[in-house]
């Protein structure tokens, strides 16, 4: 039973680098900076790392150059690529490896220069069409991945009466949290009207319903909880972790208003032995505003179709009833191609009470959730300050 490894592994250190714009740096350089910070944050040296989990949007053999660059010789290697949820999906295999004794200390790391690289998003989309074709969708030129999420939003609006205004609430809440976070990329005030009146990209999304395109890197270190407790820092326990994938293409998704988060969420919470009332803060992968509504519903924080009402009147903004995406999220803080790892890093900072102005009082248990592809992969984890 997975409950047997509940809280057995802890996050001993986290690090970020190059958030926003990192002119003149490669993604490997940013990754190495974040990795170095995470290892130092744990009070360790790079030579202590004997496990690696990493992946890249473009390099299919990415673990090898990362291992080479960092100069480590890992006994555990995971390069599972599930899009933006990957770095949360890396949790459970790493926990197994640590508990079984395959390795002692796993570094999970990611870096991207999506904003400043000469080979950017546009070229990436073009290259992927050749290397990883989707011949039943590509001929219709959906903006990748925006249109796929727009189709889900449109269906949610039709089925549940969700409004563009409610979607805009998500973007506005993210911006208000970002205003409290010096690391965030976009911190200027944003109103619902400004979201609605921004440039339309793919109905019903304006540019403000869509995440940022930034550079950035993130890393974290996992080790056995009893070892982590002996180090300098404050360990954050991994209480539960689960990943679910039902499809890849949006056209192959059975119901566009129900994601596989409805499977990963209950599994992660069962492993952790927690219920919704135990959760103090939530970090959700907000690639688009609709994601937050879908995941709040699928993860059980409100009933299906009631996500719009849940976020209304600043419900998830600073001072609202539920703290969600307290760093500003992918919408306003950082989004370097794949955002998932930053949900974990923000939760760790909150649980260690290091989040400054945006600190959630008495934050003990966090739910974090990553999404990948076009609502294709879903990974949920429960992190806690004390063992659950």
């Amino acid at each position, binding site marked *: 039973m997975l409950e047997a490894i509940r809280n057995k592994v802890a996050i001993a250190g986290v690090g970020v680098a190059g958030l926003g714009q990192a002119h003149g740096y490669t993604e490997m350089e940013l990754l190495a900076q974040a990795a170095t910070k995470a290892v130092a944050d744990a009070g360790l040296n790079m030579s202590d790392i004997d496990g690696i989990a990493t992946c890249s949007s473009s390099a299919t053999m990415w673990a090898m150059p990362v291992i080479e660059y960092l100069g480590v010789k890992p006994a555990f290697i995971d390069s599972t690529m599930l899009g933006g949820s990957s770095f949360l999906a890396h949790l459970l295999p790493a926990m197994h490896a640590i508990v079984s004794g395959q390795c002692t200390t796993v570094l999970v790391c990611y870096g991207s220069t999506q904003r400043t690289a000469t080979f950017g998003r546009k070229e990436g989309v073009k290259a992927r069409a050749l290397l990883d074709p989707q*011949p*039943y*969708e590509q*001929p*219709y*030129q*959906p*903006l990748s991945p925006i*249109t796929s999420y*727009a*189709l*889900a939003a*449109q*269906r949610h609006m*039709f089925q549940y009466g969700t409004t563009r205004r409610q979607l805009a609430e998500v973007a506005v809440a993210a911006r208000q949290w970002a205003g409290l976070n010096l690391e965030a990329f976009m911190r200027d005030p944003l109103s619902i009207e400004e979201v609605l009146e921004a*440039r*339309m*990209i*793919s*109905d*019903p999304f304006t540019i403000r319903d869509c995440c940022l395109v930034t550079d950035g890197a993130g890393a974290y270190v996992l080790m056995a909880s009893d070892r982590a407790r002996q180090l300098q820092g404050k360990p954050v326990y991994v209480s539960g972790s689960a990943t679910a994938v039902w499809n890849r*293409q*949006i*056209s*192959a998704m059975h119901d*566009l208003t129900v994601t596989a988060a409805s499977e990963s969420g209950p599994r992660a919470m069962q492993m952790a032995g927690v219920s919704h009332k135990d959760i103090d803060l939530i970090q959700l992968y907000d690639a688009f505003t609709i994601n937050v509504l879908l995941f709040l519903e699928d993860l059980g924080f409100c009933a299906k179709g009631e996500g719009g009402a849940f976020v209304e009147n600043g419900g998830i903004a600073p001072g609202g009833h539920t703290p969600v995406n307290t760093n500003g999220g992918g919408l306003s803080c950082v989004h370097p191609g794949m955002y998932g790892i930053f949900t974990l890093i923000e939760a760790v900072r909150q649980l260690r009470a290091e989040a400054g102005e945006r600190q959630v009082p008495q934050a003990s248990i966090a739910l974090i959730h990553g999404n990948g592809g076009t609502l294709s992969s879903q990974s949920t984890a429960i992190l806690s300050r004390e063992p659950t």
Partner: protein
Amino acid sequence: MTDDIKGPEARYFEKLAQGIFEIQRCATCREHQFFPRALCVHCGSTQLDWIKPSGAGTVYSYSVVRRKPEAGGDYNVILVDLDEGVRLMSCIDKGGENGIFIGQKVSARVALRNGAGMVVFDAAEVTDA
């Protein structure tokens, strides 16, 4: 046997280039599926027949992709549920001028573009939601 020389994807696009739209139906469980696969996604059977769908479908969702006029202007992307119970991505080619809406009745047609076939849909009748 000639049909078996190619995989289902190549066969699908070859027929489409001839103006023929076909989908798979499982010979074992009788369920339809789209896109074409080497096995039935419902029961795992590899006994799959090709059938011509009626072409009748209903818009499940849609989006209008905004594009500058000089780049070709806006275009729509839809997900459509065929009466046979399968869903595919496509676009409304004719009859969408007066609005596209979820629940709209549409019918399939194969458009030939640069030697390749492409399933597109026409709005069955031009009505507002």
